[in-house]
């Protein structure tokens, strides 16, 4: 039987010590969204995410109310897009996939959508490189898409070529952000 002191202790943790559920995440495979047409692939991605995750935010809020604990973020995580877009011909193609991801994330109301990712710890494919090159523009123009590049692991070591490419595009991203913020009057250089 739960005791009064245990109830009090738990609620103290929530109220006074800011205990919360930081994120709930729904993982969605996008492998079955792949199509020979890029537009169809984007449509399939948007449709699948909005179909499977349409109740994620609502259910998260219900769970939060049921148990009296905040759930701070609701997130969707997808198959690494470097795999889903392996047939893309240019960074702009990957950008279109990212735009579809962002539209889907806004439609379902999640805080983040993760998975705009290249896994290059064992060297880059041409598609991986194109995704990495698209990252600065994607992060500049989308609101909820999260991106990452895995350049190393304990098992495989680190791919230094991938690291060099990632770093140079990271600098481009910071430059593009400064230009964007300068134009908007928010100079953060």
């Amino acid at each position, binding site marked *: *039987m*739960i005791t*009064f002191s*245990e*109830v*009090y*202790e*738990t*609620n103290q943790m929530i109220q006074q010590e800011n205990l919360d559920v930081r994120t709930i995440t729904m993982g969605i495979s996008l492998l079955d969204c792949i199509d020979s047409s890029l537009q169809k692939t984007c449509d399939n991605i948007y449709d699948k995410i909005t179909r499977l995750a349409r109740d994620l935010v609502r259910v998260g809020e*219900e769970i939060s*109310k*049921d*148990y*009296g*604990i905040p759930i701070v973020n609701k997130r969707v995580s997808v198959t690494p897009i470097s795999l889903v877009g392996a047939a893309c011909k240019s960074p702009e193609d990957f950008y279109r996939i990212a735009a579809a991801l962002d539209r889907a994330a806004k439609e379902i109301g999640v805080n983040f959508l993760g998975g705009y990712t290249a896994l290059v710890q064992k060297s880059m494919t041409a598609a991986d490189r194109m995704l990495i090159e698209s990252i600065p523009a994607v992060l500049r123009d989308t609101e909820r898409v999260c991106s990452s590049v895995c350049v190393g692991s304990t098992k495989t070591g680190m791919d230094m070529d991938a690291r060099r490419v990632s770093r140079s595009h990271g600098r481009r991203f910071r430059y593009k952000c400064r230009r964007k913020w300068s134009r908007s009057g928010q100079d953060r250089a």
Partner: protein
Amino acid sequence: MERAIITVVGVDKVGIIAGVCNVLAAHNVNIRSISQTIVDEYFNMMMIVDISKADMKAGELADVMAGLGEEMGLRIRLQKSEIFSQMHRI
């Protein structure tokens, strides 16, 4: 059985238990256990209730109890019991 824990904290006054119990009865919530203490002028109560036959979901009941608490000048929380058993039991 679907259990929930209701905690009531606030300045002691006449009618707290009656007020809470009337609302629970109106929503077909069965009270399984009550424990309360009054320290100085502060009233603390914990109730274990069965909400399996309630006419609304736990989250909605939580809102009703919170609203009742505001009317009565108390803090009333309803939470499903699993959060406490998961924290304190293996």
